[in-house]
């Protein structure tokens, strides 16, 4: 949609990611979500007279870790600046942020698109800043209620280059970024709870022309909303230009219910934030040893892991992508595939992404809470492989394992589900069935080929489904051919 009629959409995203840490960026209060109002607020967070900030070392480490994972330059010297404006959820009357010299410089990530292609999206910078408190507007009609629990929690603001050209690219960018952050444990990426927030900067232009005026869209709180907001803005902006109008450089709010963006009421004039270096905080200097140490301890990132999976196990790019989309998926797969060298990778992937995901989704569970442990699924797969049970029976066993958390071995034994592969045993069973159904045999021989399935069914019934279907088929065919 965004590339119709030689229109081009230029999109840049600003992501605010809450850093995983026990305490806040400049105060020792807890970062827990959902506590009683103002119980996680220190005197510093409440901006009492004479209070001063002291920086949390771990938060800095998380930012470095993130920067390294985004292939970005870590700036060994960075400065904290004050961003000055008035708002009730901003107790200091300024936000401590970084403006001219951020902690992380330019980097990039790769995104995977539908057609199987991959695109590099540049990252301009990443900086540290404080989160604001929360205003609640619907408790009393003429009042707003302020809770400062969130005030001062560490945020990483990650700014992308305007390299994004469509809603799909934007969504893939956010998904990839989110998965990286979750992988390395620097942000839990929870958009519903607000630990990952997205602002969209979007402009349009006719291909080959100069950059258009951009609008900033705030309050885009889900992957779906990102797509909707971009689609709406594309329509809105192209319509205005087509009818001879001009785009205002403004901030707009995304309305989730209507799927539209609207102008923010209170902005008659642009904010003048009067950034200046925070005189309460000396420059942030990061030693090389620290950066090296963090680099060494970085987990394998999704893109790298994906390539490794494809190369090592020869699974498809599509399958690999699913496995690395969540660190827990990859771990689950890893456990099974390394538990027994004979296991077939494609097989394992299919069981995970097919049967297991289906049951997990149905029961609203995440893979890390799966009632079937990786090793146990592996065991089941082995039983199929060595013909202990048939594929069809395996599905039933799998469901039973999910329900009861019992191991395959126990279920197979208890229910007598072992596959019958003994050809003589099967032959005698087939003989029995054919003898009992002489009239149908005659009908078959005179042309009613459909009855083949009936005979198979009868054999299965006799064996409670445990006869090896392949062998049954072969022997039955031979017998009926006579």
């Amino acid at each position, binding site marked *: 949609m965004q590339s119709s009629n030689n229109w081009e959409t230029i999109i840049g995203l600003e992501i605010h990611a809450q850093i995983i840490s026990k305490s806040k960026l400049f105060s020792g209060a807890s970062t827990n979500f959902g506590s009683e109002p103002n119980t996680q607020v220190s005197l*510093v967070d409440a901006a009492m007279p004479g209070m001063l900030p002291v920086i949390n070392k771990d938060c800095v480490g998380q930012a470095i870790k993130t920067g390294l994972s985004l292939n970005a330059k870590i700036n060994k010297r960075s400065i904290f600046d004050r961003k000055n404006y008035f708002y009730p959820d901003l107790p200091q009357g300024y936000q401590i942020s970084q403006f001219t010299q951020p902690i992380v410089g330019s980097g990039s990530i790769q995104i995977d698109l539908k057609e199987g292609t991959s695109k590099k999206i540049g990252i301009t910078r990443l900086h540290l800043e404080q989160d604001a408190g929360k205003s609640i507007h619907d408790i009393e009609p003429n009042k707003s209620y302020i809770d400062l629990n969130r005030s001062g929690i560490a945020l990483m603001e990650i700014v992308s280059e305007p390299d994004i050209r469509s809603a799909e690219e934007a969504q893939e960018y956010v998904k990839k970024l989110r998965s990286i952050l979750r992988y390395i444990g620097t942000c839990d990426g929870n958009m519903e709870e607000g630990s990952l927030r997205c602002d969209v900067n979007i402009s349009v232009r006719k291909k080959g022309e100069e950059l258009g005026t951009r609008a900033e869209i705030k309050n885009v709180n889900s992957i779906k909303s990102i797509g909707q907001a971009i689609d709406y803005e594309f329509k809105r902006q192209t319509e205005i230009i087509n009818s001879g109008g001009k785009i205002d450089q403004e901030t707009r709010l995304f309305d989730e219910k209507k799927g539209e963006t609207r102008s923010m009421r209170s902005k008659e004039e642009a904010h003048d934030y009067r950034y200046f270096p925070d005189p309460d905080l*000396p420059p942030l200097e990061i030693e090389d040893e620290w950066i090296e140490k963090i680099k060494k301890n970085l987990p394998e990132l999704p893109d790298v892991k994906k390539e490794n999976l494809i190369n090592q196990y020869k699974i498809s790019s599509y399958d690999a992508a699913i496995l690395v989309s969540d660190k827990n998926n990859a771990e689950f797969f890893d456990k099974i595939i390394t538990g027994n060298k004979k296991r077939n990778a494609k097989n394992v992937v299919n069981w995970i992404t097919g049967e297991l995901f289906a049951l997990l989704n149905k029961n609203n569970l995440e893979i890390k809470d799966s009632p079937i442990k990786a090793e146990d699924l592996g065991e089941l797969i082995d039983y199929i492989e060595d013909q202990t049970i048939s594929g069809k029976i395996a599905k039933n066993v799998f469901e039973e394992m999910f329900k009861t958390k019992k191991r395959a071995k126990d279920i197979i034994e208890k229910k007598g589900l072992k596959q019958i592969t003994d050809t003589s045993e099967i032959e005698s069973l087939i003989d029995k069935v054919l003898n009992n159904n002489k009239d149908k045999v005659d009908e078959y021989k005179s042309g009613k080929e459909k009855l083949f399935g009936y005979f198979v069914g009868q054999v299965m019934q006799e064996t409670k489904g445990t006869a090896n279907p392949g062998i049954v088929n072969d022997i039955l065919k031979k017998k009926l051919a006579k």
Partner: protein
Amino acid sequence: MDIDKKLVKKIATLSKLKIEEKEVEIISKDLSKIITWVEKLNEVNTKDVTPVANPSDIKIPFREDEINDGKIEEKVLKNAPEKKAGYFVVPKVVE
């Protein structure tokens, strides 16, 4: 530099200060005088000089990531002009 009335009003808005009409003229004069006076800094050659935000040479000191503060909601709200159910209360803010 002349700080005209329009600029005075803009600065007052940014600082969230209310200036009565009759005061604007006086403030405009005062601020203009002061700003003109500080403009003598233009005489100083500061090419290639690194600006200094704080006279001390120290680097930022770090704090360990531990929860050792908060849970003092009584103290936090003690001096609040208006509070209810554990919240600070203000006139309704329209986004």
